[in-house]
């Protein structure tokens, strides 16, 4: 039970937690949190699983670096959209009817 596998397992639980969060949470900001948790879970699995037999593997680590930057990019865009929606409609959740044509 190397440390890689411990964190990979933790990553799996984090991913599932984030996935459940996306489905259940309505509030935009908290849903963005869930996406970040889910992403961190995937990164943990990517590195943890690759290093389950001990020894650092630089390739998944470089991938995770790229992943983190992409994650922050997505989060920034999501936050910008959420704030604009809030500025325009005062709502912090997505309602079913808001995107039907007027």
């Amino acid at each position, binding site marked *: 039970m190397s*440390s890689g596998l411990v964190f990979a397992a*933790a990553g799996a639980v*984090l991913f599932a*937690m984030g996935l459940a969060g996306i489905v259940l949470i309505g509030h935009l900001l908290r849903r963005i949190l869930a996406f970040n948790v889910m992403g961190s879970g995937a990164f943990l699995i990517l590195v943890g699983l690759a290093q389950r037999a001990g020894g*650092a593997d630089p390739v998944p680590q470089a991938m995770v670096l790229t992943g*983190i930057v992409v994650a*922050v990019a997505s989060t920034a865009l999501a936050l910008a959209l959420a*704030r604009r929606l*809030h500025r325009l409609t005062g*709502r912090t959740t997505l309602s079913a009817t808001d995107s039907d044509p007027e």
Partner: protein
Amino acid sequence: MSASLAFDLLLAAALLWSAWRALATPDIFRAVVLFIVFGLLLTLAWARLAAPDIALAEAAIGAGLTGALLLDAVGALGSRKDGAP
């Protein structure tokens, strides 16, 4: 049960706990703070996984910048009262 395995398991448990609390608390400000705690714990986890680059990046970008963005968003969204959970 070597010491390092115990520490890893403890750290993993802390990670899961902080993530679960961050997602479960309805109050958005405390959720973001818990998320930043989660980010710092994650930095430790990357250190344990012999990935100092990621630890640094996670601290600076993951917890740091994302945390700042989220806190700022909480400030902006908080300015107009909203009830929806």
